[in-house]
């Protein structure tokens, strides 16, 4: 069984996003290790998709770099096995429905379990379409993690009631919007609620972390890797440490 909820509850958490295989799997491994050594409570590995419609140009380019290097679902799962054996925080996959669907949902869930992956999040799988994926993932002990966006309270509640592991907030424009979503989620679920940010400074992190149960770094590590490529490790270590210190001060 996934222990995402238990491991990430009761504290402010920091979860960096890293595009897997950008520019190669060795760099991804170093980024994972550097993040964990400097305070990351969990890691989201982005599985590249040719057409990442929910994300901006930074992640799009990272996906194209990874795919151009010959990355495949098989290679990522193999690498994830290595990463999970080296770190003691949960690792999740974040990708698009077609990557999982085309691989075979059952085969994907089973491989995730064997690789020690705690959860999977699919950008283009809203509440309305999740059934086809969720029961299979659950049966392999992998949490299918939900997104929630600003919406009428009844809808947020409906999503929260069936949330597994943790919950990611996307599309909220103000701190008040984030706080309101968190409030409604908490009334209906006990999963930690994490909000993602771009271009986060230490100062931002101090205030943003108060809005929810923690912070996901959506594009900051991707940008460091875009700039420093295979030599990103020290820059990632420094950045994650800065944010980690800020949210715990």
């Amino acid at each position, binding site marked *: 069984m996934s222990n995402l909820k238990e491991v990430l509850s009761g504290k402010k958490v920091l979860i960096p996003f890293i595009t897997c295989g950008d520019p190669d799997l060795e760099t991804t491994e170093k980024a994972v290790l550097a993040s964990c050594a400097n305070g990351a409570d969990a890691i989201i590995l982005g599985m590249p*998709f040719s057409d990442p*419609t929910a994300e901006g140009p930074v992640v*799009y380019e990272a996906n194209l770099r990874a795919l151009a290097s010959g990355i495949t679902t*098989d290679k990522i799962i193999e690498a994830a096995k290595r990463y999970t054996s080296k770190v003691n925080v949960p690792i999740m996959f974040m990708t698009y429905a*077609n990557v999982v669907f*085309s*691989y075979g949902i059952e085969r994907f869930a089973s491989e995730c379990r064997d690789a020690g992956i705690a959860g999977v999040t699919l950008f283009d799988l809203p509440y309305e*379409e999740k059934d086809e994926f969720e029961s299979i993932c659950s049966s392999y002990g992998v949490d299918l993690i939900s997104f929630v966006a600003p919406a009428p309270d009844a809808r947020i509640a409906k999503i929260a009631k069936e949330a597994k592991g943790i919950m990611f907030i996307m599309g909220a424009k103000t701190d008040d919007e984030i706080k309101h979503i968190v409030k409604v989620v908490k009334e209906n679920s006990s999963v930690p609620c994490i909000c993602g940010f771009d271009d986060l400074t230490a100062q931002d992190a101090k205030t943003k972390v108060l809005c929810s149960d923690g912070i996901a770094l959506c594009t900051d590590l991707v940008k460091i890797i875009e700039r420093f490529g295979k030599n990103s490790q020290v820059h990632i270590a420094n950045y994650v440490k800065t944010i980690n210190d800020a949210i715990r001060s």
Partner: protein
Amino acid sequence: MTNPNGRFGIHGGQYVPVTIMGAIDELEKAYEFYKNDKAFNDELTTLFNEYAGRPSLLYYAEKMTKDLGGAKIYLKREDLNHTGSHKINNVLGQALLAKKMGKTKLIAETGAGQHGVATATAAALLGMECVVYMGKEDTERQALNVYRMKLMGAEVVPVTAGTATLKDAVSEAMREWSKRLDDTHYCLGSVMGPHPFPTIVRDFQAVISREAKAQILEKEGRLPDVVLACVGGGSNAIGSFYHFIEDKSVRLIGCEAAGRGIDTFETAATVNVGSVGIFHGMKSYFCQDKFGQIAPVYSISAGLDYPGVGPEHANLYDMGRAEYVPITDDEAVDAFEYLSKTEGIIPAIESSHALAHAIKLAPQMKKDQIMIVTISGRGDKDCAMVARYRGEDLHE
């Protein structure tokens, strides 16, 4: 034909980021109301008839019929619509709906530029802002259409991401929509994307077969034996098929863009070479690799250069109700020239894919059989490109 949650068999659905579910719900509720609203439908019919030039002709192509020596061939002349293609049918419907919903801005994707031009037209007419996303490669292939859109006050944004073609324009338009849902309607151009788009677009395009059925019954006193239309996303085809779906004696044939051939990687014949996947909000057939990465597709026709197909077509194929045949660039260009010379009608290169199959099929049919081919658009936009394909150094 639509099940709850917008399913067509196993296809369709609403595979979109949670950030745009609210807008999709709002659109669905508005459409459910207005589709049965008499005032809305009267207004749309007036726009169709007084502005777009409907009903379009069902033209008996006598010379073509005699030349091919088989079935009697009728052409459904969507090329005669205002803006030169069937795209105006859907756009007037969606723009009017958006206006009723209180939206002030239309955004759209476009491939060949026909849908972009139609959207810019409707926006100008109804006093709305308009931004069109177009793959950079397509802005170069269809420079004149870019100018047309700008002339009517639209902003054209070249999309450089990915393959810089139609699929990337769709992705960009969806991404932009999620950022400004409050005042903006995404005027999707084909029977694709998340529910309710495939149903909305089909209903507005169904005017093609509604008219064609009445026209053929009036002219011939009976139903056609075959209806042919080209398929990219599939909007003119579903419009051409819709009112014949229950008439089991009518063969429905969608003509896909095979590009350089379905045995090559340079093809866009989705139903013929694709597999079931989830992309752009829908489950359907897609050109993709075994890891679900969407394949770069190719066709001489920018309007058919798309790696997916609408979910209702995917279901019609699964049920065996419609057939989907691949047509190569060469065959389409031959048909483009054939209709121009034979009937004095220059068809769009997209529509030429349907004509190419008609040219193959008609001689195998009996003289008392009837075929309807939808000419989805006019071919003026394609002349320079076809000239270059034939080796002439002609540029717009």
